[in-house]
């Protein structure tokens, strides 16, 4: 996702900011495109196409959630390019969304990306700051031994 990095605790949603859903990072998007950050299996695409779950070969479960309170948009303005069971590579397009519509209708366009099974995680390290673009490393997650 292209945009500006936002620390998870600055996300305007208690569950994400409080890391109830896991640790990670968020992006305030400047374009309505989500590409895969990892090689993974698609675990699920929400029926409203605003969030996607990925599972990496090492077992990390990654949730990418476009915007805050976007579930209420009921899929309007969202389009997915993958489905549950698909295998994706880094950079494969996962979702497209109408950024202007999200900004108009949702609470925020800020999009968190978290590891939901933190029991496997040893550390989460930010690898970038400020503006980021597609293909740039932003987060490094280490697995427990």
């Amino acid at each position, binding site marked *: 996702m292209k945009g500006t990095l936002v620390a998870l605790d600055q996300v305007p*949603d*208690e*569950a994400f900011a409080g890391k*109830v*859903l*896991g640790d990670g990072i968020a992006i305030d998007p400047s374009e309505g495109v989500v590409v895969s950050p990892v090689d993974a299996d698609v*675990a*699920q695409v*929400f*029926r409203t196409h605003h*969030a996607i*779950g990925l*599972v990496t070969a090492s077992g990390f*479960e990654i*949730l990418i*959630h476009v915007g805050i309170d976007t*579930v*209420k948009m009921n899929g309007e303005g969202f389009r997915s390019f993958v489905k*549950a069971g698909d295998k994706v590579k880094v950079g494969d397009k996962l979702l497209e969304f109408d950024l202007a519509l999200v900004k108009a209708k949702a609470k925020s366009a800020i999009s968190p990306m978290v590891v*939901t*099974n933190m029991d496997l995680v040893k550390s989460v390290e930010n690898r970038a700051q400020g503006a980021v673009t597609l293909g740039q490393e932003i987060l490094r997650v280490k697995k427990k031994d």
Partner: protein
Amino acid sequence: MQKTVRILNEEGFHARPAGVFVKKASEFSSAIEVQANGTTKNGKSIMALMSLGLAKDAEITITAKGADEAAAVDALVDLVNRKFQA
């Protein structure tokens, strides 16, 4: 120990509800499962619960097995009934 409950909140069993549910479930030592639409998922896995894709009015059966199973099921049923307000 097992109870069936209906999802009452408008957005269904979604990211935030799943996170809150797992946080509560993880407070108990019992193994916890959630059944819906003929599939059974680990009640302590956010991704597994979200993959059920449950909307408002869906019914789920919460099962706990272990030393604190009764308390676990009661706490989780209560959480669902309170629309996942932690």
